[in-house]
């Protein structure tokens, strides 16, 4: 990678440092000079936005942890104490809570961008796999974070989701007890979830570092999916993409701030302002919106298949829906990366996106009547898309001719 380096130590101190720990050289190579395709569109800014989201969650989270008490008798009031009595606490707490939602907005956009432009294809499979791991860890972290305010949805969400483990044959009940620290959600659960909720973001940050490292080996994919061929296809990361990413981050902060300052509770559930009560079950137990697509898949399997009962079936489906993402690079074998040049893929992809919104919507509806039928249809399409449509399209689709290079493509666009 050092071939991109234009770094020459400016003085004796820099030279001394460069011989021992070349951090300045590293930063110059990877944060400034790194050659980046010049045709990246705004969908590519969400990587930087996600780094910002993780940073915001860690900073606000560390401050919240200074005032929070992980005890079932005190947790609810300690969160209210933050909102009421800590200086700026209402805003810090709202930023953390809204920040989780904004994190997932960016995360889903980032993943859907990768799915459309074929960013998971060789030689970028590892980047994609690391990304899926980050996604799964983020889901786990967000879920555990939602338990901490110890409201009714916190408690009952934890109760419903931890029951998932008990579906595993033979050892399920033991795993569930290990996760909860007892037979039901209680003080040990709150304590270990708090501990893990504090730990996992740093694990995520470490995997993000690997994700970016893996990205810096082949370099960025781009909207036409044709690899960089010559230096005029690229621009240095700084100032071109630092500027563009910073602009996109500021733009992203606008809806973020809107929710934090003008509607901080609109993304949450009113029931979470009621302290957890194991004796009172809420009318509808609904997870946070960003978990709804997978919650729908969990509930969609309400029938037994041979020796697999519906409960285990649901868990397999939900786990499968997440883990299947890991093998997407080998399910879609089309040589053409970008969906722009795949006339059939485009439509199935659009339907997949609509279907995903449908899964989200259905997760918030009661599991009855037409909703259960629709949930099955949407779940079926989710799996069909990856397991059947992508492999088949790879074989039968006639793709459009690709531009020979990024430069040719952008010149064509400019003169069209």
């Amino acid at each position, binding site marked *: 990678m050092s071939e991109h380096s234009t770094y020459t130590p400016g003085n004796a101190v820099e030279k001394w440092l460069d011989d021992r720990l070349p951090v300045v050289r590293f930063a110059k190579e990877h944060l400034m000079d790194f050659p980046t395709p*010049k*045709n*990246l569109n705004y969908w590519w800014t969400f990587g930087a936005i996600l780094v910002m989201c993780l940073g915001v969650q860690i900073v606000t989270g560390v401050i919240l942890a200074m005032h929070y008490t992980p005890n079932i008798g005190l947790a609810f*009031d300690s969160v*209210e104490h933050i*909102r*009421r009595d800590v200086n700026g606490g*209402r*805003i810090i707490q*709202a930023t953390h809570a809204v920040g989780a939602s904004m994190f997932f907005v960016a995360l889903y956009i980032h993943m859907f961008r990768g799915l459309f432009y074929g960013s998971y294809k060789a030689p970028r499979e590892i980047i994609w796999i690391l990304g899926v791991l980050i996604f799964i860890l983020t889901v786990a972290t967000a879920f555990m974070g939602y338990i901490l305010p110890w409201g009714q949805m916190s408690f009952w969400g934890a109760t419903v989701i931890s029951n998932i483990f008990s579906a595993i044959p033979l050892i399920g009940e033991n795993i569930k007890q290990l996760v909860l620290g007892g037979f039901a959600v209680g003080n040990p659960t709150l304590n270990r979830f708090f501990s893990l909720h504090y730990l996992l973001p740093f694990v995520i940050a470490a995997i993000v570092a690997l994700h970016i490292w893996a990205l810096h080996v082949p370099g960025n994919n781009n909207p036409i999916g044709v690899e960089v061929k010559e230096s005029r296809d690229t*621009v240095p990361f700084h*100032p*071109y993409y630092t*500027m*563009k990413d*910073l*602009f996109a981050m*500021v*733009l992203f*902060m*606008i809806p973020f*701030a*809107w929710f*934090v*300052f*003008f*509607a*901080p*509770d*609109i993304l949450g559930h*009113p*029931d979470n*302002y*009621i302290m957890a009560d194991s004796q009172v079950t809420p*009318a*509808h137990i609904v997870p946070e919106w960003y978990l709804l697509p997978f919650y729908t898949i969990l509930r969609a399997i309400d029938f037994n298949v041979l020796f697999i009962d519906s409960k285990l079936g649901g868990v397999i489906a939900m786990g499968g829906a997440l883990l299947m993402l890991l093998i997407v690079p080998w399910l879609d074998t089309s040589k053409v990366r970008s969906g722009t040049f795949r006339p059939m893929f485009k*439509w199935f992809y*659009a*339907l997949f996106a*609509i279907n995903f919104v*449908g899964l989200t*919507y259905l997760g918030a*509806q*009661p599991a009855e*009547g*037409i909703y259960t039928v*629709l949930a099955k249809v949407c779940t079926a399409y989710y799996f069909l898309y990856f397991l059947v449509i992508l492999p088949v399209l790879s074989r039968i689709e006639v793709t459009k001719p690709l531009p020979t290079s990024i*430069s040719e493509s*952008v*010149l064509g666009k*400019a003169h069209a």
Partner: protein
Amino acid sequence: MTGAINMFKNKIIIAAVAAMVGLAAVPANAAEGGARPERQAWSFAGIFGTYDQNQLQRGFQVFREVCASCHSARLLAFRNLSEPGGPDFSEAQVKALAAEYDIADPTAEGGARPGVAADRWPSPFANDQEARDANGGSLPPDFSVLAKARGVVDPFPTWVFNYFTGYQEGGADYIRALLLGYHDEVPGTAPEGFELPEGKYYNDYFPGHAIGMAPPLADGSVTYTPGEDGVAVPETVEQYATDVSAFMMWLAEPHLVSRKQTGFAVLLFLVLFAGLMYATKRKLWAGIEH
């Protein structure tokens, strides 16, 4: 070819819209078993909304004279009543008010002492069990964050618009509606065919309709002091219900005013900053075909 694709595209959009509308037509709160409260024009609604200090003071009076005999507000401290953005009583008023109450304090002689501004609002019952025993088995919920623990489930597309209007007043709307949701001739109030359990009251807005709380308000039950301008506020159940709902919203969200004020500065900054960033980005990229 393009025409065919466009037609296909349009069909998909129409189908998607039709599906969404179809899904939304099923009222989401049908199962909740309560009528939908009407939206009120709250002073604290919307991005410019602030609390009406006089209304909060009246609402506090209703709370203190009526609600507080059964409902606690354990997170309310006397000092909160003089903090900016709230009812804004003077510090002297709050000090005098707190001193009227006996606060349990094991270190004090006799186990109790007069309250000070830093004390929390004393609860009417020592614990939940006592509260239930005194209220026919029902637990009067704590008021501290109650206005945010209640809400209104809006049908599609209203809930989508809520994200853009920042509608956060569902709790106040619900509480006001609940207080006005009793039927006139107590207790023979339930509509025909509805079996009202003994000791319960029929309420249009309460989920399941059978509520343990007797109608708490009556016309003239709280005497308001006319303001300096001499204009008297009507002493009606509707006025009491509105005022106490506003007070409960403040109680649940005491920093609403400063939060929105900060929000204006932040958003204004972000919009201007984004504009400058965009101009810089454009200038920087101007020489690059991309």
